[in-house]
């Protein structure tokens, strides 16, 4: 939500490659009928494939479905499933659902900051790691929970964070 300071920096880099990808985007987008009811599904497919919603893809989706760009962008900015900026290769999602919160999920974020040098909502400069908070993954009995690229880690103690980060090569990344 809000401003994306990373956007400017990263955008210039990916500008050149995007236009080469137009056909790739089209293939994904045109899997569905060009109707507004498929907007969510189309955007999710693109998000999953590219780890964010490329600007060109948003334009193509708008043309294909017949919904103004502003409204496609509005959906991209409204729904948390979408990212307008590329996420890191490894995304550390710390659950901040109530059960995890009262079992001190905040301390896990402290540990991640210590290891990776980034806070929730940020991505490391080299694009390798992102940290996010998630609103309840539905594994509340295992609070506190952290998910890394789909793998669920339950009952994560602050001490374990270092071990998990190491699994992905991120130890002392922030130093």
């Amino acid at each position, binding site marked *: *939500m809000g401003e994306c300071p990373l956007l400017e920096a990263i955008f210039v880099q990916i500008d050149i490659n995007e236009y080469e990808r137009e056909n790739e985007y089209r293939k994904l987008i045109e899997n569905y009928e060009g*109707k*507004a*009811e*498929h*907007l*969510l*599904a189309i*955007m*999710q497919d693109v998000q999953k494939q590219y780890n964010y919603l490329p600007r060109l893809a948003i334009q193509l989706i708008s043309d294909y*479905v017949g*919904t103004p760009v502003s*409204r496609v962008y*509005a*959906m991209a900015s*409204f*729904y*948390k*499933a*979408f990212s307008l900026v590329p996420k890191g290769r490894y995304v550390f999602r710390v659950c*901040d*659902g*109530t*059960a*995890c*919160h*009262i*079992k*001190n999920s*905040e*301390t896990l974020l*402290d*540990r991640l900051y*210590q290891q990776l040098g980034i806070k929730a909502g940020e991505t490391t400069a080299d694009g390798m790691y992102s940290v996010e908070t*998630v*609103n*309840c*993954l*539905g*594994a*509340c*009995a*295992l*609070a506190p*929970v952290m998910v890394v690229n*789909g793998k*669920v*880690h*339950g009952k994560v*103690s*602050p*001490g374990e964070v270092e071990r998990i980060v190491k699994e992905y090569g991120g130890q002392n990344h922030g130093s």
Partner: protein
Amino acid sequence: MEAKVYKDDRQTVLVCCGTGCTANGGREVFRAFQKRLENHPEMEVLPVIKATGCNGWCEKGPLVRLMPRDITYCSVAEKDVDEIVDKTLLEGVLIKRLLYRDPVSKEHLTSHHLTDFYRKQHKIALRNIGEIDPGQINDYIEREGYQALKKALQDMDGQAVIDAVKTAGLRGRGGGGFPTGSKWQSCRDAKGEPKYIICNGDEGDPGAFMDRSIMEGDPHTVIEGMILGAYAVGATHGYIYVRDEYDLAVQYLGQAVKDARQQGYLGSNIMGSELSFDIELVRGGGAFVCGEETALMASIEGRTGEPRDKYVYPTEKGLWGKPTIINNVETWANVPVIILHGAEAFAAIGTEKSKGTKVFSLVGKVVNTGLVEVPMGTTLREIIYEIGGGVLKKRRFKAVQTGGPSGGCIPASLLDLPIDFDSLTEAGSMMGSGGLIVMDDHTCMVEVARYYVNFLAGESCGKCTPCREGIRAMLEILTDICNGKGKLEDLQLLEDISATMQEASLCALGRTAPNPVLSTLRYFRDEYIEHIENRFCPAGICRELTTFYIDPEKCTGCTLCMKSCAVNAITGEKKQVHVIDESSCIRCGECYRTCNFDAIKLARRDRHEN
């Protein structure tokens, strides 16, 4: 109402592979069983191995159950599999260390059915979970699956289905508690085509995972419920809106819909009748507000999830302006049982105005965390202490939060409250979707209010003034209070803003957003005053108001706190008194909560530093 369990005496190994147990290695255990039993020379008939959905007892996972002897092994690791096969499956010998040991009687219990956790439960919505492979439609069929549909199509008409649901007294399980039968009647009576059936699987309440377990563990019960609903109101299209974060649920539901279609339970002329109905899956975009029915419909229509005023109900004008019924996952899961076993049997359970059972996710500072399904009217005390095993580490119970961000906190004095829709609302909370979050004396109630308001600050759609600006103002005030900048007048301001939010907000998110604030003000006002007047947080949670120091008299030098410190602020040799370096301490409280000797103390930060 118990379904027949197993038709033959073939040995079956049920391995829980719900999200919780999977995180703990359930899948590895499952695969180990598969490998080991692929071609076992000593077995004439190879056991059936099933990966099931969430059993509910997440605390003791990964769970492995052996039928038909009904043996439950807890916290099973991959390395235990060989022993289980050799000792229990082949020789029939129990492995004591894997059995659950009752903390009071000290007995080892063979079956989970004998444990306190399960004994008091009554499974209707969860009847199949843990017993079947959710990816196999035949498992569902073997346990009376689609029998209700058959009965309805053969012996009843749509109105009779509605009458049964009305007599049963089923009320929405998603939070609203609206009488399901009445809702269906309005839709049946409404004019417009096509009519739609929607399943709200957007389970957004943090701390709740009931719907996830049902969608993952028994997808067909939802589908059968929806087909019955379609038959009742004359609908032709159905949508299951699943929360984006629930990968496994999407997978199993997708498979189930395909299988149901293939077997003729979905599509044209279902089971040879005139009913034609099909279901489409929609993945949510990640928005709590989309649990609100009009926002959910906007989302399906390809718009942002902004609700609308409901002066005209969705049953009249819903999806694309057509008559629509939206019900929660758990509500749908109850429908086949009502139709097959009769409305009276269902209505015999529960309280006068809240019939049937409710699934709760019992989480937080409680010993037995997991999913429980109990008859309405069970008291909070029974659930937390008898089923839940009491508060973790025997700490003092402070409150139980129910109803998610729309609900409130219930103090110890109300533990004997029988849980039903009305009693919880009167106490200043609500049933909500069923989250029960147990809090102990290490939980700060002001911070809990702030937490929920902060959650809603990001989840509100932002369209209407009272919700958006009301939440903004409340968040500023609560944050100030937690940071020692609060003023007593703030409390009145919180109450004024709350009143306007309750009256003027566009949707239920805004109307119920003040609940966590109002309920904590009602039962824990002293904590607010403590934060404001004394600039102290008795629970040791608010970092700006707290500092920690080690009592040299009590410290045994065990080094446990040192290991727990994220910033290495504690120094000390083994068996020597440890010291916290105030300048590097971030006040996270980990050491305080870790110490087993009560050697770490709280102090007011501003006083202590001076």
